[in-house]
């Protein structure tokens, strides 16, 4: 506190001293002829030269920054559309840098050149329609070019993904990401936020079993309806009014939610459970090079943004709605490390929408693998899920075993045998083939249709 006072005192004294100096300066300049509001020729010339000096510094600084930092950090794109976007960005940069230099040059040059010279009047020049036409039409034409190229790229980047695209769901919450792979059938199971169970179903995947689990825990679990009613009705416990209000509020909410869960149980179609059955989870996003991916995004709490700087992709992750994007990685992590000359480079998924105090830490590592490596990883992950809750530790990729441990995989038998040895372009058939094998013979018909049916 004392230091703060001393600092304030020093500032006040400094200001007073400066004011006194000003006073002295002004009294002495009053002896001269110059009036304060009239700008002397000397001042005019000095500022005019400064305009020129500043322009040189500005341009020099810009060029230095461009050469030193222009493309460091951004690096080359690692996705198919990323190259197109970088080309477009460069095109735009060429245009805007040209405009920047031209107009700033004219501005500062005129400011320097046409400084007031005694005896030289200004040129009365109120308008010139032709000139104004020129600088309306030229920007319009240039912008038309920019718009056409821009929209072309935008449409192709945001268009629907191809049939071979692999579905992955990315789930964001304060302050981490989880990936859910669609598994061998490439169909993600349904979800509903009301099914969320911290330990057993963190991503709220919907199956008959998970609905029942949610109902049970809401009815009977710790903090569930029965528990709350006990608390509120127990005459041996003294609740403060605040606690009572909080419990009441909680109970109201849960009673509302449980009715919705009952409805969900009633209308649930058990045939859809199989899509969820082979879904598996990962803390690291593992992708296969040259494979198109269709990502869907879901948020548990607030808005996040899934930002893949190296793949030139971004989409907000919004609670209450599903968003999507697609891209095709075209460089493996290993290739990118080589091309950058950095051994420990990694791809990453960052959060790019303010989401709370630890926003800046919210990320998920991304690995892009060769097809053969990827298949091995994918198979082991699928098997990990399919062998009834067995945990699978994959030390090579530091991937934690999925915490999802429902035991509804009893019928699944030999699903992913076919993966190895297939050609790349055989992927689509492969997926369908797998499904056929995996299918329980009794509901084979649904299985065949199911592939094209929307997941939700």
């Amino acid at each position, binding site marked *: 506190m004392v230091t703060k006072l001393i600092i304030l005192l020093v500032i006040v004294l400094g200001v007073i001293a400066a004011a006194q100096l000003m006073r002295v300066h002004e009294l002495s300049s009053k002896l001269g002829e110059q009036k304060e509001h009239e700008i002397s020729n000397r001042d005019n010339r000095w500022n005019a030269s400064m305009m020129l000096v500043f322009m040189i510094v500005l341009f020099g600084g810009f060029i230095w920054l461009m050469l030193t930092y222009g493309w460091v950090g951004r690096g080359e794109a690692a996705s198919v559309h990323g190259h197109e976007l970088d080309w477009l960005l460069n095109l735009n940069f060429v245009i805007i840098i040209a*405009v920047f230099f031209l107009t700033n040059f004219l501005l500062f040059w005129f400011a320097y050149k046409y400084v007031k010279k005694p005896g030289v009047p200004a040129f*009365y*020049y109120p308008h010139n329609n032709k000139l104004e036409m020129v600088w309306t039409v030229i920007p319009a034409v240039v*912008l038309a070019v920019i718009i056409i190229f821009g929209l072309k790229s*935008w449409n192709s980047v945001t268009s629907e993904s191809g049939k071979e695209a692999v579905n992955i769901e990315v789930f964001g919450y304060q302050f981490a990401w989880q990936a859910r792979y669609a598994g061998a059938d490439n169909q993600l199971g349904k979800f509903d936020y009301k099914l969320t169970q911290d330990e057993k179903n963190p991503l709220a995947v919907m199956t008959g079993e998970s609905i029942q689990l949610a109902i049970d825990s809401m009815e009977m679990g710790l903090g569930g309806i029965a528990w709350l009613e006990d608390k509120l009705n127990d005459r041996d416990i003294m609740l403060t009014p605040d606690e009572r209000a909080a419990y009441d509020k909680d109970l109201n909410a849960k009673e509302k939610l449980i009715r919705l869960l009952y409805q969900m149980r009633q209308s649930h179609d058990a045939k859809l459970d199989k899509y969820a059955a082979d879904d598996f989870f990962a803390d690291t996003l593992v992708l296969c090079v040259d494979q198109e991916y269709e990502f869907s995004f879901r948020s548990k709490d607030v808005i996040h943004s899934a930002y893949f700087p190296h793949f030139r992709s971004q989409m907000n992750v919004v609670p*209450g709605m599903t968003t999507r994007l697609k891209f095709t990685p075209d460089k493996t992590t290993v290739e990118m490390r080589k091309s950058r000359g950095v051994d420990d480079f990694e791809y990453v998924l960052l959060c*790019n929408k*303010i989401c709370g105090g630890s926003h*800046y830490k919210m*990320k998920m590592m991304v690995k892009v693998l060769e097809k053969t490596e990827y298949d091995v990883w994918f198979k082991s992950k699928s098997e990990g899920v399919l062998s009834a809750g067995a945990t699978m530790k994959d030390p090579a990729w530091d991937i934690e075993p999925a915490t999802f441990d429902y035991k509804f995989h009893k019928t699944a038998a030999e699903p992913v045998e076919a993966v190895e040895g297939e050609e790349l372009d055989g992927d689509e058939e492969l997926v369908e083939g797998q499904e056929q094998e995996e299918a329980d013979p009794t509901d084979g018909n649904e299985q065949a249709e199911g592939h094209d049916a929307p997941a939700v």
Partner: protein
Amino acid sequence: MAAVAIDGHGHDDHGHHEESFVSKYIFSQDHKMIGKQFLMTAVFMGVVAMILSILFRVQLAWPGESSDFLSFFLGEQWAPGGVLSEDMYLGLVTIHGTIMVFFLLTGGLSGTFSNLLIPLQVGARDMASGFLNMLSYWFFFISAMIMFGSLFVETGPAMAGWTIYPPLSALPQAISGSGLGMTLWLFSMAIFIASSLLGSLNYIVTILNLRTSGMSMTRLPLTIWAFFITAILGVLSFPVLLSAALLLLMDRMAGTSFFLSDIIIQGEMLTNHGGSPLLYQHLFWFLGHPEVYIVLLPALGLSSEIISTNSRKPIFGYRAMIGSMLAIGFLSFIVWAHHMFVTGMNPFLGSVFVFTTLLIAIPSAVKAFNYITTLWKGSIVFAPAMLFAIGLVSTFITGGVTGIILADAALDITTHDTYFVVAHFHVVMGLSAVFGMYAGVYHWFPKMFGKVMNSKLGYAHFWITIVGAYGVFFPMHFVGLAGAPRRYYDYSVYSEFDKESLAMQMDLNVIITVFAIMAALGQFIFLFNFFYSIFRGPKAPQNPWKSNTLEWTTPVEHVHGNWPGELPTVHRWPYDYSKPGAEEDFIPQNVPLVEGEEEH
């Protein structure tokens, strides 16, 4: 309503009675005093916002290092051990943005100069309704104090960014600032909007109805055109923000679900269903984008006047300048969703907004080239105001061109919410508007206080400011191009995947912060000059800059009703500088045309 106000407000009976201190300086209904009140409040809020920005810039340049500077301002609660807390970092960013956009550059800029100049330049005795004008200021003052006060509440100020997107801003569980701090933010904003609406309605009515004889719309100075269009934008867009703020308040307090759906926050499962966070964003940006021009147009209007006066030349393309401002004003209403390309909005909608957004570049280009042509073959006098006006044109161009990249949805995918955006809008909107405001203060200081500011200190202020400003925001573009997200407390996360990029960012962040500190210190030269000149500055003559507009025909000492005798009659446009055949290089608007003289 407006007509009643005019009829009921006989001006002549005002000059006679003695005014008490309270009615003269506090609850004044005189537009000149209200303008000064806006300016003083804005200066205070501006200093606060500047200090906040230096606090978080220190953290960005030297993350995690203990700093006495931080603990001096933030104390143990928000800077334990001299290290800024994560939450407060976001609080500082949020309040800095809010103050700069709303309190300095909307209330401060528009409030000060619209109030001061509209009656003086159109030749009116006062605003259409002096009482509403007074209310407008006091609402502004109250909202400013609430916003300032929110910095001191226990759980911290609002922390969801100045755009306060729900659900983060709606749920107190999500971040500590979304408690009382956010409630205060919303109340402050609601009052601010009321202030803005009262002011804007007054400006529109005054400009339309109280022009003196001969002052046709095509003889209005460009400043007035800018204030006029700004006021229309404000009247049409601010109510939408008010509705967004009220709906958000209801989501927070009344359990509604306008913006909330399917949320589990801190383990609590909410029952809200069916709301859409995107709805809020649409409402917010429906104001938010016109807001950019609410900030920018007055600055462009002021600089038009200043550049013309100090080049001793008519502004080039007067009608094109009006036309481009009208075009910008109109287009600003149909571009809002370019802030939302990657929010999950339908991509087709995105392409429509790409088109409309890039169209804005055309009138903007016209304005920039017209300014430059005004300088051409001029006889430029480098008053401090002129320096800032030239600085404005430079930043308007430099910041404008990067907008072309951000408007392109495909390119926005990788630059959205990175420092590239931060650099872009700070240059084009922040710097341009701040430069315009400084230019206005230096130029109209004689009109406000009857004194002249020291020009030498003005030069020092300008050169330090522009070097500092470019030094801050040029490198920031490169931080953004490298992909650095904004609103990150630090970039330590980069050490896990790209050390090269991290090293570059740290270099640039230090450069940026050093320039920011330099520029901030430079502003104290202005503050000193400003307050010193109010009390001790040399007395101003009636028309110090040899300007044509009507405000310079009023006496230096303020009189109630502006002109002691008859209102002046206008005979010409305001830009007859260096007109061939005239004796002086300026002809004020109230000088009749000589025989055979063409208007322009």
